[in-house]
């Protein structure tokens, strides 16, 4: 019997990474001296599952490493060893190491074992002190503490329950594993095997008695059987260092009926019994977890809604069979309204399935903060608020890196050292708060610190030096703070002597804007800074303004529209060869002719007969010339790239109510395409339009 185990690899990796996350989170909760047994149990169980899984799948490097880790945890759990801060640090490092090992295995690469070996030696040193045997020997056998009388003989009675095969276990593997431990003698009992008429091939009717002479500990034997201990009667008895008459006697004595084995079982010393402990149960619970995790309430409400929908459908089809009269038209309208309502609810709820609580992102920060604060020698308390706020999975995946950047900056540059804080009369422990909440159709994530705040004087100097603003510019503090998001501001080595905020901040902003979000900073000297990220709840749907250009319908994201207006021709002036600019209040808005950029014929070309949609992207306002404004509606974003390719100036496509495809305008792409470019300053510089004319 051989199964292709590789089909289970993904599940194993997924579970293991989850297990590691859990271990990490629990380890961070551990305070040496005040540890909670349940916490240690959780960590142990996670490690144990990873070991079991990696053993099963033949990832011996992982299994071996987890083994030492588990041994230490087991001792702590049993109370035979006290937990120290050194242990926690070592265990945290092991979590990282295991993660790296599993990642490379997942990518089907040869894992780098250097770190694992180094850590393992440390573990073995700790464990070795207790076992008082040779420590830090690097051959693989040394990981098992060797007992004094080196070779023992165990009698192992193994009577699987009939359903054993159905749990996916195969005694043959266990027997060959046993054989690897030492000299193995095996007896199989066939008494239970029924007549051929009653024989069920998928059931296990055999039972075994083994005599194993080995230098290994009993725990090694228990380990082999631990995955089946609920599905079999297992008794392990130490026969002492004998190997001779006595053994022969036992062999003869067991004319081996069921009852005798049962007796042997009861007679066995309690210490020799396989421990029925939590690990196996937790492993079972873990396997139930799959990659899709949706709250049952969400599923329930979906089922409810589908029920409603079916009722509405039945009602409408009934109406359809009737003759159309005034009365039926009224109820038809009512039915359609109900249908619209149902559909909207259904859509909202289906979208909710993709939503996960933001705690998935937040959960990585305790570790990050712990590590950085240790490195910087600062005292930091991390507060997490609004962890249950839900966010689309794709958005979530992409927001975590910018957040890490911001939190790291807060710790590094925002928070002062303990001495400085004390000198400033502040609590020596700094606070970093992550807060998430919903506001309108957006999610807002705040990263707050109670540090020194941004140093506006230095930022201003830096910006002048880098030519982002001129000496004469009179900027408010807020405007100065905003400068840190400009591209010209960063590059690490230049800034590190400054307050430091601004390292790669332009990248942070760009990443957030790529998610159709925005980031702002507010700061008060000596009090702290707050970064506010605003994101749409989902990337799959947007509110769109339908516009017409010649016979083509395009969609402009409503979020980027500032206003739509009819052009007052007297306020339009021409810059350069062919760029028109509209003076709107005290700003000059460049007019982009969409029909030229998109190369469409038949659009209205005279400015006073068309409409201008003023949009903003990346702090740049432009006016888009359109023939007509149509309706506004929510649209589901579809990828153009899936079957075609990236189209400049277009961010995606959608399907309108009548089944036609309509393209969604990508404002920042459009600005790029039009040849308008904005360097660091607010000033608009018109670059060559050659590229536009070429197209």
């Amino acid at each position, binding site marked *: 019997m051989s199964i292709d185990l590789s089909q289970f690899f993904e599940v194993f990796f997924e579970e293991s990474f989850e297990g590691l996350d859990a271990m990490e989170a629990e380890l961070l909760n551990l305070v040496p001296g005040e540890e909670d047994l349940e916490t240690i149990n959780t960590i142990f169980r996670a490690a144990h599952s990873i070991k079991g899984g990696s053993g099963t799948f033949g990832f011996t490097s992982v299994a071996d490493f987890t083994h030492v880790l588990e041994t230490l945890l087991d001792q702590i759990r049993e109370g035979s060893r006290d937990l120290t801060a050194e242990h926690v640090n070592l265990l945290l490092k092991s979590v990282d190491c295991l993660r790296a090992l599993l990642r490379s295995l997942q990518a089907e690469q040869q894992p780098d074992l250097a770190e694992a070996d180094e850590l393992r030696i440390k573990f073995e040193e700790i464990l070795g002190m207790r076992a008082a045997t040779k420590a830090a020997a690097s051959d693989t056998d040394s990981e098992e503490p060797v007992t004094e009388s080196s070779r023992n003989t165990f009698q192992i009675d193994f009577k699987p329950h009939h359903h054993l095969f159905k749990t996916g276990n195969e005694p043959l593997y266990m027997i060959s594993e046993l054989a690897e431990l030492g000299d193995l003698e095996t007896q199989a009992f066939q008494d239970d095997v029924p007549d051929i008429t009653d024989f069920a091939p998928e059931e296990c009717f055999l039972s075994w008695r083994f005599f194993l002479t080995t230098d290994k500990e009993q725990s090694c034997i228990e380990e082999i059987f631990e995955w089946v201990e609920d599905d079999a009667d297992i008794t392990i008895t130490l026969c002492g260092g004998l190997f001779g008459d006595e053994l022969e006697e036992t062999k003869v004595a067991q004319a081996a009926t069921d009852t005798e084995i049962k007796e042997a079982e009861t007679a066995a010393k309690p210490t020799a019994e396989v421990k029925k402990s939590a690990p196996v149960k937790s492993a079972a619970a873990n396997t139930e977890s799959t990659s899709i995790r949706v709250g049952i309430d969400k599923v329930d409400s979906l089922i409810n809604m589908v029920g409603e929908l079916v009722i509405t459908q039945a009602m409408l089809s009934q109406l359809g069979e009737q003759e159309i009269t005034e009365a039926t038209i009224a109820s038809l309208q009512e039915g359609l309204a109900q249908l619209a309502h149902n559909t909207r609810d259904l859509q909202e709820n289906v979208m909710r399935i993709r939503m996960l609580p933001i705690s998935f992102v937040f959960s990585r920060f305790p570790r990050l903060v712990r590590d950085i604060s240790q490195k910087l020698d600062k005292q930091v308390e991390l507060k997490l608020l609004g962890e249950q706020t839900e966010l689309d999975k794709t958005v979530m995946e992409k927001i975590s890196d910018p957040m890490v950047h911001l939190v790291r900056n807060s710790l590094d540059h925002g928070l002062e050292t303990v001495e400085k804080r004390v000198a400033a009369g502040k609590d020596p422990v700094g606070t970093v708060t992550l807060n998430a909440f919903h506001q309108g159709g957006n999610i807002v994530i705040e990263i707050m610190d109670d540090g020194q705040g941004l140093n506006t004087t230095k930022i201003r100097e830096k910006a002048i030096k880098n030519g982002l603003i001129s000496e004469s510019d009179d900027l408010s503090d807020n405007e100065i703070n905003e400068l840190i998001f400009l591209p010209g501001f960063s590059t690490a080595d230049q800034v590190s002597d400054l307050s430091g905020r601004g390292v790669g901040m332009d990248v942070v902003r760009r990443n957030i804007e790529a998610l159709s979000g925005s980031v702002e900073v507010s700061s008060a000297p000596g009090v702290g800074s707050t970064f506010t990220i605003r994101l749409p709840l989902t990337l799959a749907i947007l509110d769109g303004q339908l516009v017409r250009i010649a016979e*083509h319908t395009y969609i402009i994201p409503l979020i980027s529209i500032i206003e739509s207006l009819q052009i007052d021709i007297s306020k339009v002036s021409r810059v350069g060869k062919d760029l028109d600019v509209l003076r709107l209040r005290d700003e000059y808005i460049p007019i982009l002719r969409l029909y030229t*950029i*998109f*190369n*469409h014929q038949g659009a209205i070309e005279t400015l006073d007969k068309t409409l201008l949609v003023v949009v903003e992207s990346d702090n740049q306002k432009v006016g888009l010339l359109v023939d007509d404004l149509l309706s506004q509606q929510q649209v589901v974003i*579809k*990828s*153009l790239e*899936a*079957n*075609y*390719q990236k*189209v*400049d*100036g*277009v961010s995606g*496509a959608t*399907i309108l109510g009548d*089944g*036609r*495809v*309509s*393209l969604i305008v990508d404002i920042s792409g459009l600005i790029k395409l039009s040849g308008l470019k904005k360097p660091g300053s607010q000033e608009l510089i018109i670059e060559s339009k050659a590229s536009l004319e070429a*197209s």
Partner: protein
Amino acid sequence: MITPQDDLHNKLTLEQDQDVKQFLTFIMADEEYGVDILTVQEIRSWEEITVIPNAPDFVKGVINLRGTIVPIIDLRRRFAIPAIEYGPLTVVIVLKVKLESTSKIMGIVVDAVSDVYSIAEHEAKAVPHLSDSEHAQFVAGLVNVGEKMVALLDLEKTMDI
């Protein structure tokens, strides 16, 4: 009289283990072209299409295929054959094309659909090197079906835009 189909049918039964494949053929400018029938998703009539700005001229635009956005290529333009007006016979053959590591769903506009033949691939002959027509590069091989010649399309090349 033996029709090409019969002929092929005989061959098919005789050479079942051979590399016989079914090909859907279509007509373009009086020439017959074939594509592996397993790549064909469906055949549709010409319908209104959404133009993609600044696309190459042989890309007519995109259509909505039950929620999937599918680009449509005018094969005449791709092959630099003079265009004709679309008529009631004009069809869109929707194909699933393997391009490098991904597979894409794309449609081609052709004059008319012709037939389905079983053709042993090894019978395909290479396109003569000196072929002067522009579209020879998109043809993977030529086969004879009875009296007729069918050009088997190199889809990967045709759809690589």
